């Protein structure tokens, strides 16, 4: 424009460039709107429900009087996700260790990876169905709905997440470390437990936390496995309440106070999950491997 030396870029190209870049930026802005709206509404609607009593009393299930708090739901979520993690983490990490240290590129390893991928894609409600078919119909453990069955469904959901993330970090452990240990005459199991796993630990923990965060928010696998009750329960062979189930049940209620409880529970649940997610990211950033 200012110079004769360069053929100026045509106004059309310039306009297209600006317009396209602006659209991309705008769409990115659009992507952030739902998150802002959801968080805003969660806080706005949920904060009113929050009090000390809210966390220390069980829901009453009453339509008319005091709807109570969400104590049983918080405890139930913690207990069920805890049991699910206790199963899914050792199994998931074990499968990952097998894939990286033993299976490697074998046919079986490819098959296992494929099936783990399949599990990742299975909708969570289908896991619920599976547990229903195998454990609830038959009345395993002498009960129909039971917390441990809910945990089983959640564990199935967590397993592929734990395995995939653990496999990725285990692959990052330098072979030089393994070789150094083998050269000292260390047996395989010691190399795995003393060298490989400790090195990969932060990454594995990150994956576990993300899996826990995911499981804590799931409703569908619990619908017809753990069901829901109002009272606090500690027996894994009984039905147990959970935050997502409580929210789901209360959404349909016509009573405003029950809906308020749902918002309060949702705020609590999202806060718990966000903390887990951020903690996972923090650990990931600290880890030297990734």
């Amino acid at each position: 424009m200012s110079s004769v030396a360069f053929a100026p870029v045509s106004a059309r190209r310039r306009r297209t460039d600006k317009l396209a870049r602006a659209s991309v930026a705008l769409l990115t802005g659009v992507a952030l709107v739902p998150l802002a709206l959801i968080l805003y509404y969660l806080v706005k609607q949920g904060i009113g429900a929050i009090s000390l009593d809210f966390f220390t009393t069980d829901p009453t299930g009453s339509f008319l009087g005091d709807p109570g708090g969400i104590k049983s739901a918080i405890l139930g979520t913690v207990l069920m996700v805890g049991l699910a993690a206790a199963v899914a983490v050792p199994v998931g990490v074990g499968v990952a260790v097998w894939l990286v240290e033993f299976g490697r590129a074998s046919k079986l390893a490819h098959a296992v990876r494929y099936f783990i991928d399949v599990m990742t894609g299975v909708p969570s409600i289908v896991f619920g169905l599976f547990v229903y078919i195998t454990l609830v119909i038959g009345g395993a453990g002498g009960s129909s709905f039971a917390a441990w069955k809910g945990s089983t469904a959640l564990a199935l959901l967590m397993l592929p997440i734990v395995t995939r993330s653990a496999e990725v970090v285990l692959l990052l452990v330098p072979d030089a470390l393994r070789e150094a240990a083998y050269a000292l005459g260390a047996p395989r199991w010691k190399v795995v437990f003393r060298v490989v796993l400790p090195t990969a630990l932060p990454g594995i923990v990150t994956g576990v936390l993300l899996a826990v965060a995911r499981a804590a928010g799931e409703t569908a696998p619990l619908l017809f496995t753990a069901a829901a009750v109002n009272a606090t329960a500690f027996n894994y062979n009984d039905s147990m309440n959970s935050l997502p189930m409580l929210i789901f049940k209360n959404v349909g209620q016509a009573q405003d106070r029950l809906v308020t409880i749902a918002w309060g529970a949702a705020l609590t649940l999202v806060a718990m999950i966000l903390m887990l997610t951020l903690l996972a990211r923090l650990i990931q950033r600290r880890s030297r491997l990734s």
Partner: protein
Amino acid sequence: MEAGTITPAGERSSALHRSPAARLPDRALKWGLTALSLGVIVLIAYFFIRLIVESEPVFQQVGVVNYLFSADWVPSKELYGALPLLAGTLITSAIALLLGIPVAVATALFITELAPRRIRGPLTVVVDLLAAVPSVVYGLWGFFFLIPKLKPAEQWLADTFSFVPFVGGTVTGPNYFVAGLILAIMILPIASAISREVISTVPPEHKEAALALGATRWETIRMAVLPYARGGIAGGAMLGLGRAIGETIAVTLVIGNAPVIGDSIFQQGYTLAAVIANEFGEAASNELHRAALIGAGLVLFVLTLGVNGVARAFVVRAERGRRPAGMAA
């Protein structure tokens, strides 16, 4: 321990002077983990078989074709035609892709190519946070916020664009569109993350080649970035589709749960996943109804299996060696 016990990685050791007892832990570890891994395969296979066995009554009674393509889902009359559910699942997922993928690709492009470096990290975290919101919370928000706030806008759309097929007519509160919109938001993080991943693998020399030819920023994206990344973006979209198909709780709260095929995208419907969530409680005592719902789960399982398989193929091909589009054909 002798020096002779050095074990090359990936092979079983045959130590010269190690007692069977000393070798036991290694063998136990290896075979224990192998059994565990085999267990995963067996579990999924068993799972699949049980789904088929348990849903068999409905296929026997109604017939596979009738089950999939008949439009009457009336459990009280023992009519189990899953077409409205299948249609609902496909319609809402299609809306989700249509709305969600352009936005997901745009965020990926913005974060990797256009945004100032300082805000790239924080922006990534914020987009990923959408994945941390539980589906029941999306449902809660959709039910109490999106449905009432969106209705006037939907009515305006339906009236203004009534000449477009499947748009005009009355607008119900809960409907396909709201469900699709919620799904679009829910698949955004995964589709965006995969797109981001593949876009960041575009070699800088391709971008430099375009820039050095005198391409503008956008022309560089069109010339060097998008053609290179399109396979991966398609894979990300397919993974998103897999999520959308299987999503249950959020959809069931905003789609109206009416087992009909609505005349427009602004009418109520049902999805495979939602019907399982809603009717399973009452179906426990009726064997045929239960089988019909498990059948819905089976269809869902097969659908997501297929979609995810295609998605993996896309992503793997995009991340491995680059093959030009013309060469494969």
